């Protein structure tokens, strides 16, 4: 086992704080809002309104659950199209009520299943990518565990993307990559290394702005520090003229791979 794959395992660990842990650790007055107003409610995406440092925000989190039962109930944190549509509905609401959006991302990827395909998984993700690019309110995305491909990106078209030190962000799972390229899923550790999926790699290549240390992960001090950093960054973004903020958001992605 190599260091990259150890990070993959740490990012997926059951005991790792999940989306709801972050919401409760960072926010007060959280009130969950359900449903995409089109078809259903996706339990893998938890969203609602809350206060961060006393100020209203919209918070959207992928929730994996801790126990086997919770994980089943949350579809292992793999969102359905309804999850992405609920997220977009509440992001538009955030725009209307002029509050910032915090996205907390922790997913192996969007659900792959017959129903998800028939209800337009691809279209749902595509719509979020397009709409988030011009959402007229600040967006910060935190990748706290797994940042799995398009299913993660659909909640990470943001002004700032921060990653936990042992989180991963990848175009494909190392297992998927190994089985496609080398017809052997057991070569996942090798793929993990080649995919450059650690937070350090993402920072080095300019895909994220910040990595967050996690020696006190899940502790009060951890959330307190993160809360301070988020509050400060939201204040920076709030002070920006909207057009400038949107231009910078566009440039943020525009420069990647040119």
């Amino acid at each position: 086992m190599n260091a990259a794959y150890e990070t993959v395992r740490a990012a997926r660990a059951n005991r790792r704080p999940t989306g709801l842990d972050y919401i409760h650790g960072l926010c007060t007055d959280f009130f969950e809002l359900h449903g995409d107003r089109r078809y259903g409610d996706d339990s893998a995406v938890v969203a609602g309104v809350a206060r961060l440092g006393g100020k209203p925000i919209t918070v959207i989190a992928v929730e994996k659950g801790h126990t086997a039962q919770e994980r089943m109930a949350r579809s292992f944190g793999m969102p359905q199209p309804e999850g992405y549509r609920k997220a977009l509905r509440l992001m538009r609401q955030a725009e209307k009520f002029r509050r910032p959006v915090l996205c907390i991302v922790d997913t192996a990827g969007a659900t792959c299943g017959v129903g998800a395909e028939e209800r337009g998984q691809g279209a749902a993700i595509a719509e979020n990518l397009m709409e988030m690019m011009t959402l007229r309110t600040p967006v910060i995305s935190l990748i706290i565990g797994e940042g799995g491909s398009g299913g993660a990106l659909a909640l990470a078209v943001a002004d700032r993307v921060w990653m936990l030190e042992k989180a991963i962000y990848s175009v494909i799972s190392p297992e998927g990559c190994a089985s496609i390229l080398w017809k052997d899923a057991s070569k996942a550790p090798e793929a993990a290394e080649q995919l450059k999926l650690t937070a350090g790699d993402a920072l080095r290549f300019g895909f994220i702005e910040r990595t967050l240390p996690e020696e006190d992960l899940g502790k009060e001090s951890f959330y307190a520090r993160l809360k301070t950093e988020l509050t400060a960054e939201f204040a920076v973004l709030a002070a920006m003229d909207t057009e400038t903020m949107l231009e910078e958001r566009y440039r943020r992605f525009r420069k990647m791979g040119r």
Partner: protein
Amino acid sequence: MPFLEFLFQPKNELEAGGHSSAPVQADEREPEKTCPNCHRGVPLSRLWANQNVCACGYHFRIGGRPRLRHLIDRDSFTELFSEIQGGDPLAFPGYGEKLETTRSVSREEEAVICGTAAIEGQKCAVFVMEPYFMMGSMGAAVGERITRLFELATERRLPVVGCTVSGGARMQEGLFSLMQMAKTSGAVKRHSDAGLFYLTLLTDPTTGGVTASFAMEGDVILAEPGATVGFAGARVIEQTTRKPLPKGFQTSESMLVHGFVDAIVPRARQRSVIAQLLRIYTEKGVRP
């Protein structure tokens, strides 16, 4: 002769694409391709004359340049951004060599061809993806070319017509490839916000990160008959759910039923349908 075959049999030389529909003698048989749908051998010359569509209606895969030829007015194409080349940003094992081989075999430099053109006289920006270049997978160069095309179209106030074919993001480029989904979507959004028209034609296969970005972002989404269109791979879904997939799953036809494409248009009618839509969508409406 089975009834359906009788129905679709060319009635005259013109329908057969200018070639005699009389059976060829065994000794003068020309090379054939077997149609995976009707299982009959189709002489190559007839296939070419018929835009690579079998008499039974099966659409064979075609490369980006032949597709462009079917779609746009002769001599109207100005290719753009071909100087944008992909690299190997992660130094991924085997990728550099694979790129080189693909380039020499496909005689294309990347998996998308971009430019400006006219379709029945309607000026537009156009891109066609190349199935014979790593199955149209999207790396940084593909994303950059498409982004530039949308930026140029926004600046020149041109509609965009795009033909998609893709296995998805090109995993050998890691996050560089994933981020092209956001980058292209941003450019599509700016083009859209400028009030300009974007039409996509989904061809076989359109999957993964391309489906989950610019393929599904058209104002009008057309699809070629029988094309595979979806997000997750069918085999992956079957393995994950351990259930047989429904009949016709992830085809243009099922996408139409579920409301994700506007119309299915056979290859022979694509040019005229797209031209018609370009005319309607670029004409000023009644409102000032």
